[in-house]
């Protein structure tokens, strides 16, 4: 895999499209094109630089030569990881993941605690008929702000009469961010552990709550024979079938922010919007940069665990300002990372951020 990456780097013609599209380049010392250049010629790379990348993939999507600069970043990071030259916060996240299978080092035994907030019992995957697994992101399992998301989605699926199961404390971090941090060995371990569980319980479908998990399980876990979906795909299907009916009006001006891993990387643009459009009286607006060119919230690629020290305007702030200029009251999105990064700035400016399932819960 690394050889492949190396040969891809060689075909780079240094056109700079990656830099121009990068949400970090220009505002931070990061310059993705330069990084590829240095990689091309095996120049030394200042170890602080690669950590700015948010793994949004804007560069890879734009690259006319298929160099995949975002993979180059992973490659560079993996060298740094092997040398141990990584920022402390990232190191903590990795060590935590190594021990507790989640970057925050929260007890694995509590991974299934959210299910206690439901007023019905979610079966373990082994007790289900269809072997559909609801897969949580570590954020959902442990962050008090985001824990409402699995609760909501499980409730919605339950109401629609859609059978599913969970892994509970057997579930471990999907490894999407870990891979992007460059800890490929740890990623493999996490992947193997998850895959072993999937195999043992005969999982046929995975409903991932986070676009990040969906991405890696869908695209990086190899051929598992499992259909991996984001929950918005499932819910929009259920709404279309009539199994779920958003009957209460939601009289708000809202705007939808495309998460990088859901949108530009996996081309799931319409399902979340379909869900929002199915709600009465909602006025759905669009960012001028939406869908394929949605502006990254800066939560991915390890940035969730680590903020580089620079004084620059965060994308989340830019995003919130644009939402404000469009006159919306609520920013909605379908990724826990985006919820957390956007919310911080939104609250400051008097807007609300609601995860899609939160809106849906209000109208069903």
């Amino acid at each position, binding site marked *: 895999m690394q050889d492949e990456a190396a040969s891809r780097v060689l075909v780079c013609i240094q056109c700079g499209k990656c830099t121009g599209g990068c949400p970090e380049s220009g505002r931070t010392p990061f310059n993705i094109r330069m990084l590829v250049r240095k990689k091309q010629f095996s120049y030394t790379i200042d170890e602080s630089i690669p950590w700015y990348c948010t793994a949004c993939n804007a560069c890879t999507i734009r690259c006319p030569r298929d160099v995949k600069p975002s993979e180059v970043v992973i490659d560079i990071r993996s060298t740094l990881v092997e040398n141990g030259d990584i920022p402390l916060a990232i190191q903590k996240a990795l060590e935590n993941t190594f021990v507790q299978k989640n970057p*925050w080092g929260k007890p694995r035994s509590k991974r299934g605690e959210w299910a206690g907030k439901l007023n019905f019992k979610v079966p373990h995957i082994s007790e289900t008929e269809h072997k559909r697994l609801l897969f949580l992101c570590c954020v959902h399992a442990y962050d008090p*702000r985001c824990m409402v998301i699995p609760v909501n989605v499980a409730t919605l699926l339950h109401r629609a009469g859609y059978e599913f199961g969970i892994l509970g404390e057997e579930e471990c971090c999907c490894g999407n961010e870990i891979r992007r941090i460059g800890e490929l060995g740890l990623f493999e371990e996490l992947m193997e552990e998850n895959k072993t569980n999937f195999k043992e319980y005969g999982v046929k479908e995975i409903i991932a709550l986070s676009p990040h998990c969906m991405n890696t399980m869908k695209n990086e876990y190899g051929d598992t024979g499992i259909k991996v979906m984001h929950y918005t795909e499932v819910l929009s299907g259920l709404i279309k079938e009539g199994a779920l009916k958003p009957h209460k009006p939601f009289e708000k001006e809202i705007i939808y922010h495309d998460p990088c891993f859901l949108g530009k990387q996996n081309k799931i643009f319409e399902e979340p919007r379909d869900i929002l459009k199915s709600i009465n009286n909602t006025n759905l607006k669009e960012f001028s940069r939406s869908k394929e060119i949605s502006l990254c919230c800066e939560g991915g690629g390890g940035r969730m665990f680590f*903020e*580089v*020290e620079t*004084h620059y305007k965060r994308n989340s702030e830019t995003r919130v300002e644009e939402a404000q200029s469009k006159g919306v009251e609520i920013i909605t999105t379908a990724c826990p990372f985006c919820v957390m990064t956007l919310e911080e700035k939104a609250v400051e400016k008097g807007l609300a951020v609601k995860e899609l399932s939160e809106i849906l819960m209000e109208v069903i």
Partner: protein
Amino acid sequence: MSYALIISEVRRGVFEERNLDSIGMAHLAGKDAFLLIPEGNYNLNNSIVNKIIKAKLEESLFLNPLIITELISKIIGTLGAPEIVIFTHSSSGIELASYLAGKMSLPIITDVSGYDRNEQIFFKSYYSDKVFGQFKKAKESPLVITVRSGSFKDHVTEKGKNAEEITVDGPSGIEERSFVEYVEEEKTGVDITKAEFLLSLGRGIGNKDEIPKFEELANLMKATISGSRPVIDKQWLPKERQVGTSGKTVKPKVYLAMGISGAFQHIAGMKDSECIIAVNKDPEAPIFQYAHYGIVADANKIRDKLKDLLQG
């Protein structure tokens, strides 16, 4: 008569308060308390111990494992073996106690924070106080223990008369381990990680103009000011005062969070504080899930009230 030998901890002429826990332990165990202390002018209540053994040596030589061991051998030689040798569970205590135990092949139980006099059982912390182990010595010999600060000082009783004082000769300096100097930690600006009491400010305080008012409160309370990321980002406070994943991880005794809602990254930087008091207008603020004490109120109003109380 079985006695407890208490190794006092003295530093730069100060008889450390935690020695009271060692004395309290001796009293709780019902033993005569013999206190070993270097010669010097220490502020010590003579009536709470039975005997004071003054070691003739400089303070800087006293808390040295090799020297203490030698001193104790001498005392045992003159007074007989004690039932129990008590150290404080401190930087020096653990060093001295363990060395002594090894040197003399004595049983040792450290970080003792409870004692069952009937069963003669010692309680010691395991897994950061998540559980406590109940120990007994398994060998007939003097037992070495270190006691946790704050655990036994309530058991100290006045004997009603001043303790008898005896003197032992201390060895002169030894080559294997020698004291060079005290080092005060360099203070470059403020180090919030070293503060025992942090007054931490979040965006809930409203605007930059509130900062000086909080500084006044911090002065009154002798607290150090820190802040969450939004406050730092807005440059209301300098970066060195930032608590959180992108700032510093702190573990003060008291973390008083004013107007901080408790973003994930912030929580990670302060959750291990000994006592967290959170003030926030929003009763749903996540910080309340981590706090020991929570107050749903406007941080600025609480601030003004606290100032009034402290000044008045």
